């Protein structure tokens, strides 16, 4: 992301330092992570300490300081999915991809994350890939949801 785009985003929020989190969310949404250069630009433009930006970027779950894979796999581990067997789904997907929750594989294909409730509890256990929900996943066919993603 070049500085022009970052400036554009900041201008959309009137260059207001209290909109820092909103600015970071917009950058995160476009890039799926927050590169150091982008954070430095935000720090300059909003006149906010770089350390404070780091504090925020590490505190909130929506932000990532490392690049993400092409496909975002979200395993719902909300309570409803938990009692319906989400931990076993997560185990299976971890075994299958060879990465743990919170990690991205070396080919940058999948990023595996756990999320606390997607709010479609009737479909639990749910795995969401790139925003598309796969419902009523069973341990036996959990690995199948990853098929078809390149």
């Amino acid at each position, binding site marked *: 992301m070049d500085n022009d785009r970052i400036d554009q985003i900041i201008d959309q929020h009137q260059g207001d330092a209290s909109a820092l989190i*909103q600015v970071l969310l917009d950058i995160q949404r476009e890039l799926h992570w927050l590169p150091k250069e982008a954070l430095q630009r935000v720090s300059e433009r909003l006149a906010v300490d770089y350390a404070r930006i780091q504090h*925020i970027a590490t505190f909130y*779950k*929506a932000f990532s300081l490392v690049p993400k894979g092409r496909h975002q796999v979200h395993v719902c581990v909300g309570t409803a999915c938990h*009692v319906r067997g989400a931990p076993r789904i997560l185990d299976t997907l971890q*075994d299958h991809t060879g990465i743990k929750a919170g990690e991205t594989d070396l080919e940058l294909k999948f990023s595996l994350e756990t999320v606390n409730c997607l709010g479609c*509890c009737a*479909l639990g256990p749910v795995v969401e890939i790139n925003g598309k929900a796969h419902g009523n996943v*069973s*341990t036996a066919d959990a690995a199948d949801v990853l098929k078809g993603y390149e």
Partner: protein
Amino acid sequence: MVQLRSPQELEKLREDLLTQRDPSRPCISACAGAGCLASGAQEVIDAFTRELQTQGLQADVDTRGTGCPGFCEQGPVVVIHPEETCYLRVKPEDVPEIVSHLKDKKVVERLLYVDPATGERTTREGDIPFYKNQQRNIISDNIRIDSKSIDDYLAIGGYAALCKVLFSMSAEEVLDEIKASNLRGRGGAGFPAGRKWEGSRNAPGEPKYVIVNADEGDPGAFMDRALLEGNPHSILEGLIIGGYTIGAQEGYIYVRQEYPLAVENVTLAIAEAEKYGLLGKSILGSGFDFKVVVHRGAGAFVCGESTALMTALEGRVGEPRPKYIRSNEKGLWNKPSLLNNVETWANVPRIINRGAEWFTQIGTESSKGTKIFSLVGKITNTGLVEVPMGMPLRDIIYKIGGGIPDGKRFKAVQTGGPSGGCIPESLLDLAVGFDELTQAGSMMGSGGMIVMDEDTCMVDVARYFIEFLTDESCGKCLPCREGLRQMARILTNISQGKGKAGDLETLEELSEAAMEASLCALGKSAPNPFLSTLRYFRDEYEAHIQEQRCPACSCKALISFYIEPEKCTGCRICLKKCPVDAIDGDKKKIHIIDQDKCTTCGVCADVCPSHFGAVKRLSGVPVPADLAEDQRRVIRKSKGQ
């Protein structure tokens, strides 16, 4: 759109809208809430648009995407007006048949609700037992309007309460009405809304702020999302009334970015309200200015706590601060800030329209009105249910929820989210209300209700919540940051059979410290899931610690899988699906599990056809010895034998 400059102009617009609308005209309303969208509602809506064109009916039939009606279990839900014919689990391929029957008003029988007990079909939405036993004062509007249309909201009487407040009530009168209604906050603690409003109104300092807390973080709770997605104008209307009452001209909506549709719909609602002059400078010519800003939360459970939410709004890390001075007196930017939960705000226009007296007739002595619960987990009818306060848990779970699926036995219901507790079967007749739930060791919270059956391990549930809170603790207070970490470690050990004598006492001590010495409600209530499960299910803890046995056969480290020889037909399904090749067998040869290889992943139990049910979970007992090789041939019984 024209700017409305007076209450008369608003009423004129409302009349025009109503005369343009023919109530007998067919309308297809499909749930476009996040739950139904996840089960394919968008494809269904697109199919309706296409099919109406194909059959040349687009000019005669309206369509609308509504908010969540609550019956998520049977989504995508489609309702045909004016008959209110309710179709469930609709797929795009069902659409041509539905559309072709519109003209002759014939019903597509196979898509109707079927009573699981009697097999009877129900045509009208309101007659379905799931809906019939509820009292839907708030969520019912979700299905009456297109969630993206301000005109729809106006047509059902929207912004009438705002009009009434601005032109015929003083701020004191509004406050008195809210106080008289005994409305209590729907977000967690149940603090009386009127007292909170009064505090903000009387507090010195300008400007003042009003805030919607839509940082719905409790896993398994999604009623706030449904309201914000489905009927955003009712929240805005409540918020503007709150602003008028306390003298605030600026409102914030703090909504999780994980709810993109809620962000979209509420942002659109603000823009439309501004165009009509229902937000902005001198609303309806009253001289009262009000603006609303949407702030997306970046994912931190603790930000649901009011002071943490306000620091997050300021663009900082969401850490709570001490509440020697309440945030309604000194909150956002140190100014008086009135924060209420989504559902609380949604109640406000209704109380103004219908009066405090109407509101106080519903509910119990100390808890007035209705409450929306999200009924999830091991329950037949997952969904959102709205009931009067005071309804017994048993009625919610059995009459509305349809009981536990698969013939399993009810074990507990968890209420109040991670800060709440588990309520056992012996207390099922408890009336739901703020104080009743607190006395039972749980709490109302935002209204999540997670039902658990005999297969749910209560130690694991406690471990799950404590781990969740360890992860979400902001780290400011030591007993929460470190204490919860230790609790999670001990509970993990217990669930792995490594518990030891004295563990429960240590857990109780850590609980006491967290409750006494944490700053905010997250830490103070964090031990609740442990304490309530210990109170009602101590035997399960003891079984884990003393016998290394999980009574629910759920904890992975304490169970074994075993194939019952007399039930196995040698079908090879489990053998093929086992990810670690731990199953030995062949066609018509009784399968056996190599316990050394088995990782207890449970795939074999999942895939074994239910009419065989040959795979059994064992815990605390030795696995029976394998059959000798010559006894492993499956002898097929002929029919009738």
